[in-house]
């Protein structure tokens, strides 16, 4: 029976960890949690994981390349002889050195579309090439396992990846998430629900929304107060310029999209820490479509990468249990050569990041075929060597006890990628 098989897998997977927290023993629950940070607009991965060891990189990008590592903060931070980290992401360097952060530079969707919206749809439904509307794969995953593997999305009204039959929790971006609202008042709530009684769609949504609001508002307010109290003593993982600053910025209405990411990450982490049934998390940030003047160590992309790394540090605080994994991905990469306006156009393959104690970090994984003209996809962008679905299949199998048959159902037609067998720690 399926449930038993899942239990068996769970214990197999969990045995790798000598000290398992008590909640991991709950029936039907493998330990891991997965958070996806999705960068909408196609982030330029080779500005984040800089191939400084490939001379072609500097030929292709005369004005926007990140300089070779020279020890300064206006150059790449060397990770190995081939790759370096964008200096705006310096806060993540300790995580790489501790072996809990890894990159996959040849990742992406097998579909060749260069449409943001189609590609995002493919990533979120797990069905490359299909533009049919349907459930998102996180929702389908949650449906397979039921309430014990629920999903939480922070920020967007209703991201495609969470759309589907299984109820999911959606949380507003920024400070709005901490307000309980008018429905916290019992009399008002009951009057509204009575008014919606003949309209099940509204009635169910209002009930679910009111319940979720009242719980989350209290939880988040408490957590933020605690964070403010602790602000004088920043946590060991954080670089000096982390969360408080970002929280301030996020409170401003109309702030550029990546700025609020750290606060959203904190709210997501708080709620998933409190409610152990929330095992799947989704965050997103826009503003990555850098066709024009993308800059190298100043400008839009630099600022976005700095905000991203603050958010990742925030997530690291909340998701450092043995089988937690945080993934950073984008719908596709950008052209390897800069375009005519000191930016980059829509490409194909891209760099994905994985963070967590279960991740075989401190190194990059999979195939990298370099930037020689003949090795580029259509002569212009990175090839996709590793299907994103195979990467998620590895993570789900390794940290959530999801059986291969179930990943087949989740991602019909994908193939297990044995070249990534070392992605997670044995």
């Amino acid at each position, binding site marked *: 029976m399926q449930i038993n098989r899942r239990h068996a897998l769970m214990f197999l997977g969990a045995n790798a960890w000598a000290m398992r927290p008590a909640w991991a023993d709950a029936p039907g629950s493998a330990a891991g949690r997965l958070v996806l940070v999705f960068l909408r607009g196609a982030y330029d991965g080779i500005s984040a994981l800089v191939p400084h060891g490939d001379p072609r990189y500097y030929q292709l990008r005369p004005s926007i390349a990140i300089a070779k590592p020279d020890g300064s903060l206006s150059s790449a931070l060397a990770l190995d002889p081939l790759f370096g980290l964008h200096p705006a992401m310096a806060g993540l360097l300790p995580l790489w050195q501790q072996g809990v952060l890894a990159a996959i530079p040849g990742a992406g969707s097998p579909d060749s579309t260069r449409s943001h919206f*189609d590609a995002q749809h493919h990533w979120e439904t797990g069905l490359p090439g299909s533009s049919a509307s349907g459930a998102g794969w996180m929702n389908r995953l949650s449906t397979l396992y039921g309430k014990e593997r629920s999903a939480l999305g922070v920020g967007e009204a209703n991201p495609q990846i969470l759309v589907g039959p299984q109820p999911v929790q959606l949380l507003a971006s920024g400070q709005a998430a901490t307000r309980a609202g008018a429905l916290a008042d019992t009399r008002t709530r009951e009057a509204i629900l009575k008014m919606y009684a003949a309209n099940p769609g509204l009635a169910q949504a209002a009930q679910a929304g009111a319940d*979720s609001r009242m719980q989350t508002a209290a939880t988040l307010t408490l957590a933020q107060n605690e964070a403010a109290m602790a602000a004088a003593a920043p946590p060991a993982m954080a670089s000096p310029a982390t969360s408080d600053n970002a929280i301030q910025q996020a409170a401003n209405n109309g702030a550029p999209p990546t700025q609020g990411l750290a606060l959203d990450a904190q709210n997501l982490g708080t709620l998933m820490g409190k409610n152990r049934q929330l095992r799947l998390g989704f965050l997103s940030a826009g503003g990555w479509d850098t066709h024009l003047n993308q800059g190298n160590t100043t400008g839009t992309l630099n600022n976005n990468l700095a905000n991203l790394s603050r958010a990742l540090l925030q997530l690291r605080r909340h998701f450092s249990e043995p089988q937690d994994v945080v993934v950073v991905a984008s719908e596709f990469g950008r052209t390897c050569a800069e375009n005519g*306006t000191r930016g980059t156009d829509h490409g194909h393959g891209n760099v994905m990041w994985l963070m967590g104690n279960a991740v075989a970090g401190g190194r990059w994984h999979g195939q990298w075929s370099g930037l020689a003209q003949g090795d580029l996809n259509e002569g212009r962008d990175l090839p996709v060597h590793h299907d994103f679905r195979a990467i998620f299949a590895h993570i789900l199998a390794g940290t959530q006890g999801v059986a291969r048959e179930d990943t087949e159902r989740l991602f019909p037609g994908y193939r297990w990628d044995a070249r990534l067998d070392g992605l997670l720690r044995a």
Partner: protein
Amino acid sequence: MPNSRLHRRYRLAALGIVLLVLGACAQTPGLGTRSPAGEAAPSVNLDTRSMAARWRALNRLGYGPSPALLQSIQSAPDARQWAHAQLDAAWADSQRAPTLPPTLAEIDLTLPQLFEGAKKERQARAAVSAASPVNEALPIEKRFDFSQPTEALHFNRTMVNKAVVWRLASCSEDGLENPLLARMTEFWFNHFNIYQNKGPVRPFGGHYALHVARAHALGKFEDLVLASAQHPAMLFYLDQWQSVDPQSARGNRGLNENYARELLELHTLGVHGGYTQDDVRDLARVLTGWTISAQSPTGFQFVSRSHDAGIKTVLGQKYPASPAQAGQSEGEQAIRFLARQPATAKRIALRLAQYFVADAPPPDLLAAMEARFLASGGDIRQVMRVLLDSPAFWASENRLFKTPYEFACTALRTVRAAENRSKWVQAWGYAAAAGQPIHQWQTPDGYPFDSATWLTPEALTRRVDFALNIARNAPEWDALYPLLSPDSRNAVLQQGPAQRLGFVLGSPEFMYK
């Protein structure tokens, strides 16, 4: 589709109407056989005399009630005739300059004046010494306060805010704008979306709304595409202004595909419209040299020395090597060609029907709209007539849930917020927090308008909060009570007078359109 089936469907639908109907009108069958514009009406009997049909027309062809609109639609012979008359009135208004309140008049400055304002802001900023930093923080309650003359230092920000207020005022005050014209403006602004926070776009959002989306809202689709293609807001937003022939380029400038791709994918053919990466590249080459002009009255210029005069092929259409001067007409030709394609007709029909009829509109309606689009040379008003004459538009089972912006507009109308700045701030804040910030949808696809996106627990909770807050202590409007279902009316009447309008606004009848 056989008439009997349509007829049955419609009668079934009528059973589902939850609104009170107006006496004998509800029982009166059918329409005349000619619509006001003289085209043959469908041979099916549409019950468009019921109050339900009238209420639907107010909400779909506008943003909800006002005292004057309620009176106008109740005294009309039937809702469909009223709808066609609204369409004619909206078209006529689109041909005239809008009635801007004096505080918002600046959004309709000429394009050279807007460029000049942006330039003066740059100069003013350069002149501020490093020792006296500019206070950029604008308290939220000051955001829509335009009582003082615009400061040079904050020209762009002021223009952004004025444009937003125009979108709130024009959707909520009949005296400023025909409600259907406001709706069409919303639809086209979103179809040809620009993101007003992108640096150089900032002063132009209001002008774009007026002179692109509004001016061509009910005209020829190809004129609309062309107007958006040549407007500084779009030229800046999708980077077209900098895309040049690499051979011609001074410095390291060259081709940028951004606009060409979205023109194919979003504005015209749609992503499955049958184009390739080569088409994208060659269309970008066709458009090289199309850029902004700070001096020209149109804000646009064609720079022939930046144009790629080589051979290009877009969707099988050859653009032969030609003198660079031909580049402007080459681009116009390409845009008009794309705007007339069957794939474009299909996409526009679908988007309009999803906006006005149902999240999943019936195929027969789509086919009729496409056919009219192609037969009329992309005449949007003609396509709208097909929509208004379709049973699907009037069928009560085709529900549409209001988006946050639509609901914000309904709220402003319902609380009669005219000139009340704090209500505008509230409505703006709600739309932004609910995920639909006005003029700030960042990506060129525009926001979705289906209920799967907007009817979620968190979003509904937020909407109810907003409804109760914005209408708190507002005077009662009891003419609305007969429009509510018995459940809603009971809920409203059980509240104290200060809460009643909030409950009206929070009722299902006000959530759906």
